[in-house]
C-alpha cells in the first residue's frame, strides 16, 4: 500500500530528462502499451492528438459532403441529388463542421498544449479529459448513424421549428440530431470545466495570471462561455425531442407554444458559440505569430481584455440572427447596436497582430503565412459580419449566399487557417519531426487561393439574390458563372487540404528531426523534448516572466525563470496546484492512474442515448435507456470511489 502523507515540503533540485528521477517519473506516468493502454490512457498528449485526428476526420467527411453539393450547384438544373438528399447533405455538412470539427480541433490543441504551456504534468482532471474525448467520439458516431441509415438531419444546422417538429418532419432524423447534440453537449461541458480548473489551478509557480500564454486565455475564456451557453442548446434540443416524442407544446402554436422560443434558445447558445470556435484559434495566432516576428506580441493586456470582452458581449448579440422575424423596433435597435460594438474588441486583436508584424522581423514560414492570411480573412469575415449587424442591410442579405460566404470566411478564415498554422507550428513538438516547408508552401497557396476563389464571389451570389439551401436554380438568373467559379474554388481548396495530408504522412517518416525548440519559441512547451516524455517536466519549473525562454534577451520580469531547476514531485503521480491569481504553490495534487472508467461510463451513456432513440420504433427503448442510466450511475460510482493513493481517504480513521 502506498504510504501517503498529509503534508510535505518538496525538494527543489536540478534535473534533466536522463536523470534517475526522470526514469522514475517515466515508469510512474507511462501508459501501458497495447489495447489496454488504448482504452485506459489519461495522458493529455495522447488525448489531444486523438481529438485532432478525429476532428480532422470529421473535417474530411464534412468537406466531401460540401464537394457533392458543389457539383450539384455547379450548373443550373442539375439532377445529381434529390431535394431530400441535398437537405441532408447541407445539414450534415453544417453540423459536422460547426460541432464535430470546429471546437473539437481547438480542444485537441488545448488538451495537448495546456499542461506543456503551463509547466504542469497533465490536465487537472485527467480521467475527465479521456471521458470528454470518448463522449465526443460516441456522440459523433451517434449523429452519423442517422446519416448512414438515410435519416440524417435535414433542417439545416440551426434546425428551425416548426419544420423540425413531428408534424412536418415525421422521420427519426430530428430525434437523432436532438439527442446527439444533448450527448455532445456533455463532452463540451466537462471539457470546458477541465480547461478552467487546469488554467486556474495547475500552473507552474510564478506564472501569475498576467503571464499566461494568450492561447490559454482564449481557451479559458471560451470554456467559461461554454459553461453558460451549452445548457441553452442542450435544453433547446431536449425540449424539441419532448415536443416530438412526448407531445409537449414548447414550439408549436396549437397550445400556447411559441416557435420563436427555439430561435431564442438556439441563438443564445449559437452566437456565443461563434466566438467559442474562433477565440482559441485567435489565441494560437497570438502565440504563434510573434515567434515568427521575433518579438513579443504587441499589446498583451489589450488583447487579453478584448478576448474576454468579446466573449461577454457575445452573449448580448443573439437577436441579430432573428432580425427578420418581426421583433419590436426597440429590440432591433439594441441588438444592432451591440453587434456594432462587439467589433471593437475584435479589431483590437487585428491591430495588435499587424503591429507585431510591422515592428518585428518576420521569418516567412508556412505557419507564418497561415497566421498572416488569417488576419486578412478575419478582416473580410469581420466586415461582412458588421454589414449584417445593420438591420436594413440584414433584411436584404439574410438567408442569401452572402451569409453563407460570411460564415465561411469566419469558420475557415478564423478557425481552419489558425488551426493549419498551429499545426505547422506545433507538429514538431507533437511528433519530433518538422513538416516539409516546400510541400507546405504548395499546401498554403493552393488552400488560400482555392478558398478565396470559392468564397469571395459567393458574396456577389448572395447580393444577386440567390437564397441559401436551394438544391438547384434556373439558368436565367445570372448565378451560373458565379456558382461554377465557387465549385472550382471548392475543389481547389480540397486539393490544398489533400496536400496537407500528404505532407503529414510524408513528414511523419521522413521529416527533419525537430529538436526541443525548432522555432526558438518563448514558452515552456519548447523547453521539453519533442515529443515530450509522459511526465512532461522532470521538475516543475518556476516562472518569472511571460517568455521564460526569451527573458535573457528581453530583460523582462523580476528575477529569472528556472526551468531545469524546480520542484521534485515523485511520490507517485503528482503535480503542483497553485493559487488562481499569483500562482503561488498551494497544494501537491495527486494525479489518477490510467482508468477504464471514462470508457465504461461513455459506454453506459451510449446505451442510454441509443435506448432513447430506439423509443422512436419500440417502447422497449425505454428499458434500454433505463439500463444505460443505471450503468452510467454505477460507472460514476466506481470512478469516484475515494482512493488512498489520490489522497482522498483518511490515513487513520478518527485521527
Amino acid at each position, binding site marked *: 500500500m502506498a504510504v501517503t502523507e498529509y503534508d*510535505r*515540503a518538496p525538494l527543489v533540485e*536540478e534535473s534533466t530528462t536522463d536523470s534517475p528521477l526522470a526514469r522514475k517519473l517515466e515508469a510512474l506516468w507511462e501508459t501501458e502499451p497495447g489495447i489496454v493502454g488504448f482504452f485506459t490512457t489519461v495522458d493529455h498528449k495522447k488525448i489531444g492528438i486523438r481529438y485532432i485526428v478525429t476532428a480532422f476526420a470529421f473535417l474530411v467527411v464534412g468537406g466531401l459532403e460540401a464537394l457533392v453539393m458543389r457539383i450539384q450547384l455547379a450548373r443550373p438544373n442539375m439532377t445529381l441529388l434529390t431535394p431530400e438528399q441535398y437537405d441532408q447533405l447541407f445539414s450534415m455538412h453544417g453540423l459536422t463542421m460547426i460541432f464535430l470539427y470546429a471546437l473539437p480541433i481547438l480542444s485537441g490543441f488545448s488538451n495537448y498544449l495546456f499542461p506543456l504551456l503551463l509547466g504542469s504534468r497533465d490536465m487537472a*482532471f485527467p480521467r475527465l479529459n479521456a471521458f470528454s474525448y470518448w463522449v465526443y467520439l460516441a456522440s459523433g458516431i451517434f449523429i452519423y448513424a442517422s446519416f448512414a441509415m438515410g435519416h440524417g438531419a435535414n433542417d439545416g444546422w440551426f434546425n428551425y421549428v416548426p419544420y423540425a417538429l413531428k408534424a412536418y418532419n415525421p422521420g427519426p432524423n430530428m430525434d437523432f440530431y436532438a439527442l446527439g447534440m444533448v450527448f455532445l453537449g456533455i463532452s463540451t461541458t466537462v471539457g470546458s470545466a477541465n480547461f478552467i*480548473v487546469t488554467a486556474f489551478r495547475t500552473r507552474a509557480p510564478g506564472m501569475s495570471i498576467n503571464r499566461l500564454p494568450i492561447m490559454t486565455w482564449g481557451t479559458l475564456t471560451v470554456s467559461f462561455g461554454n459553461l453558460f451557453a451549452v445548457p441553452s442548446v442542450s435544453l433547446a434540443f431536449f425540449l424539441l425531442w419532448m415536443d416530438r416524442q412526448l407531445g409537449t407544446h414548447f414550439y408549436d402554436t396549437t397550445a400556447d407554444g411559441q416557435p420563436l*422560443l427555439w430561435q431564442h434558445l438556439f441563438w443564445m447558445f449559437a452566437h456565443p458559440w461563434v466566438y467559442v470556435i474562433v477565440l482559441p484559434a485567435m489565441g494560437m495566432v497570438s502565440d504563434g505569430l510573434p515567434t515568427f516576428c521575433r518579438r513579443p506580441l504587441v499589446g498583451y493586456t489589450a488583447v487579453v481584455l478584448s478576448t474576454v470582452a468579446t466573449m461577454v458581449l457575445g452573449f448580448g448579440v443573439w437577436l441579430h440572427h432573428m432580425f427578420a422575424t418581426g421583433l419590436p423596433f426597440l429590440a432591433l435597435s439594441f441588438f444592432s447596436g451591440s453587434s456594432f460594438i462587439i467589433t471593437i474588441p475584435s479589431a483590437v486583436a487585428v491591430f495588435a497582430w499587424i503591429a507585431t508584424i510591422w515592428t518585428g522581423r518576420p521569418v516567412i514560414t508556412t505557419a507564418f503565412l497561415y497566421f498572416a492570411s488569417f488576419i486578412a480573412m478575419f478582416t473580410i469575415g469581420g466586415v461582412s459580419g458588421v454589414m449584417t449587424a445593420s438591420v436594413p442591410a440584414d433584411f436584404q442579405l439574410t438567408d442569401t449566399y452572402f451569409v453563407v460566404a460570411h460564415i465561411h470566411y469566419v469558420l475557415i478564415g478564423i478557425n481552419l487557417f489558425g488551426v493549419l498554422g498551429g499545426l505547422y507550428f506545433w507538429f514538431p513538438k507533437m511528433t519530433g519531426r518538422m513538416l516539409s516547408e516546400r510541400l507546405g508552401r504548395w499546401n498554403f497557396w493552393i488552400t488560400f487561393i482555392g478558398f478565396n476563389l470559392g468564397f469571395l464571389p459567393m458574396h456577389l451570389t448572395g447580393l444577386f439574390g440567390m437564397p441559401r439551401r436551394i438544391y438547384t436554380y434556373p439558368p436565367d438568373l445570372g448565378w451560373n458563372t458565379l456558382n461554377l467559379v465557387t465549385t472550382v474554388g471548392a475543389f481547389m481548396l480540397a486539393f490544398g487540404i489533400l496536400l496537407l495530408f500528404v505532407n503529414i504522412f510524408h513528414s511523419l517518416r521522413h521529416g527533419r528531426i525537430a529538436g526541443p525548440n525548432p522555432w526558438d519559441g518563448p514558452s515552456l512547451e519548447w523547453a521539453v523534448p519533442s515529443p515530450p516524455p509522459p511526465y512532461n517536466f522532470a521538475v516543475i519549473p518556476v516562472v518569472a516572466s511571460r517568455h521564460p525562454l526569451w527573458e535573457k534577451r528581453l530583460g523582462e520580469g523580476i528575477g529569472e525563470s528556472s526551468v531545469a531547476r524546480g520542484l521534485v514531485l515523485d511520490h507517485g503521480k503528482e503535480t503542483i496546484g497553485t493559487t488562481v491569481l499569483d500562482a503561488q504553490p498551494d497544494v*501537491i495534487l495527486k494525479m489518477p492512474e490510467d482508468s477504464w472508467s471514462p470508457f465504461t461510463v461513455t459506454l453506459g451513456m451510449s446505451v442510454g442515448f441509443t435506448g432513447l432513440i430506439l423509443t422512436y420504433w419500440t417502447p422497449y427503448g425505454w428499458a434500454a435507456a433505463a439500463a444505460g442510466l443505471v450503468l452510467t450511475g454505477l460507472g460514476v460510482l466506481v470512478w469516484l470511489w475515494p482512493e488512498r493513493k489520490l489522497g*482522498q*481517504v*483518511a490515513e487513520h480513521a478518527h485521527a
Partner: protein
Amino acid sequence: MPSAAARMRTLPVGSVGVRASGWWGMMCLIGTEAALFAYLLFSYYYFAVQFGRSFLPNELPSVRLSGPDTLILILSSVAVWWGERGIRQGSTVRLAIGLLLGSVLGAVFVGIQYLEWLDKPFVLSADSYSSLYFTITGFHMAHVAVGVLILVVLLAWSVLGYFDRVRHAAVSIGAIYWHFVDAVWLAIFFTFYVTPYLGW
C-alpha cells in the same frame, strides 16, 4: 555543477477542502447547472410575457403542498451543513447523522412533489404551461434524486471511516451541490408559486 538541493515550504498533499481540484470542478458544474435552470425559467417568463394571464391555468398554483415541502428542503440543507461542520471538527458521527437526516428529508421532498404532480388537474401534453411545469419541476426532482444518492453514498463512505478532520473533500463537494439544488428550488418556487399572484 548544479546548485545544491533545497526544500520548499510545507504544502498539503492530496484532496484538502477548497484546495481540491474536485471542489473547483463542482463550482464549474454548479455554474453550468445554474445556467440550465436559468434557461428553463427564461422559457417560463418568455411564455408568461407572450401570452399573459391566458398562459396560466385557471386555478393558480397553491402553496398547500409546495410550502411545507420548501421548508423540508431548507431543513435538509441545514442538516447537511451541520454534519459537514461536524467532520471539520473530526466528528464522523455528527457527519453521518447530518447526511442521514439530509437524505431522508430530501427523499420526503421528492415524495411530496410526486403527490403534487398527482394532484394536478392537467398532464404534460395539455398546453405550454403544463409542459413547462412538469419539465422544470421534473428536471429539479431529477437533481434532488441525484443529490439524495450522493448523500447516501457519502453516508456509506463516512460509515466506512473514509473521512477525518483533514480528508473530507468529497463531503464538502457533495454538500455544496446539495445546497445548490436547494437554492434552485427557491427560484423555481418563486417562479411558479409567487409570481402568478403578483398581478398581470
